[in-house]
């Protein structure tokens, strides 16, 4: 359905339109905030908050981007602000240097590639991490990322490139294996 019609129905107080809007976008929002937060409770909270803000601010939506992109930009902002406030992310933070030292003799056949990569992704600067997750993990295009994060396409590409470089450096022993 045309976004504009759906928005008009929501603004007119049509409850079924609210649910339609939610159903159309919740999957994408939840996946994105889950990738960023990595915790089911936080992902649920951030998804809730995203849609509450979406409904509250729908009158401000000017249609400059697709509705889905606009909602995702709210989701990213909600998730990052939530994470900045701390909570459980700290528990997963392990200094990458320590991990690299501890595994200097490890090779690619080791089963902990996923764990090492997860820690390396956690250690990426926030902007790199979000772009990497959106592009390489969730399959967003640089244009979508740019519109969602409010940055230029070139910035998104540069951040992805730096994120990959950092990850490769962190996992060099696996790559050499």
């Amino acid at each position: 359905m045309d976004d504009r019609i759906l928005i008009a129905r929501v603004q007119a107080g049509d409850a079924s339109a609210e649910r339609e809007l939610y159903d159309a976008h919740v999957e994408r929002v939840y996946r994105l905030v889950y990738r960023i937060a990595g915790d089911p409770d936080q992902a649920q909270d951030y998804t809730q908050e995203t849609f509450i803000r979406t409904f509250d601010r729908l009158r401000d939506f000017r249609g400059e981007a697709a509705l889905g992109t606009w909602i995702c930009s709210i989701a990213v902002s909600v998730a990052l602000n939530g994470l900045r406030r701390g909570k459980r992310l700290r528990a997963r933070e392990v200094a990458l240097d320590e991990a690299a030292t501890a595994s200097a003799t490890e090779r690619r056949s080791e089963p902990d590639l996923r764990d090492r990569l997860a820690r390396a992704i956690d250690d990426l600067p926030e902007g790199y991490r979000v772009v990497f997750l959106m592009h390489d993990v969730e399959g967003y295009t640089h244009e979508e990322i740019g519109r969602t994060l409010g940055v230029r396409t070139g910035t998104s590409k540069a951040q992805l490139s730096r994120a990959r470089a950092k990850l490769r450096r962190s996992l060099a022993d696996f790559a050499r294996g």
Partner: protein
Amino acid sequence: MIRDDDQPLEPELREAARAYHEPPSVPRDAVWVQIQRRRAEQQRRWARPTRRVWRWAAGVAAALALGVGIGRLSVRTRGPAAGASAPTVATSPAATTPAPTGAASTKDEATAYRLATADHLAQAEAFLTLFRASVREGHEERLASATARQLLATNRLLIDSRAGTDPRLRLLLQDLELVLAQIAQLAPGRGREDLKLITDGLEQGGMMVRLRAAVPAGTEMHFRQGAL
């Protein structure tokens, strides 16, 4: 090792990356129920007449405080030598002039909100600094929860006021709200871990830095002494 970082990750790494925070299926209905509940709660809050009356009363009180504050500022700026000529700002909004012009009124109102916000942020910054130090030193801060509740009430008023229309300020107030709410909910005899979570959250979110950046130096002292 591949050095061209514009190239996609190697298949093995790509595969491993897809397993990073792999989302389970969306708890669609559970989340929707929560959204509905919170929105209904939000609407009830807004519809509650006593709250609206209180908000108006607070707004009027803030405007009066502003009028007095601006008046004092105006008198001090002009000094005794200004003598006979009446301070323009002091007499405009609250005192003698019956109907201020629209532009002047709007300007005064904006200044009022700016001062009220600066004062609130200065108080919050002072409170959080003390709270953090108290937690670090292992002291029992009995008044923290009560003070946080008071600040929380003002904070919520400001979010919903004209001050909340500035997106950056609104974001700061929203983040502050969460911190204050956490402290306000602290029960007596809570674990050190809870306290540490709050103080770590403060540091990680850069709250203190953001508060200090938002508060002009000496705001609180001047405001309290009537200089503003």
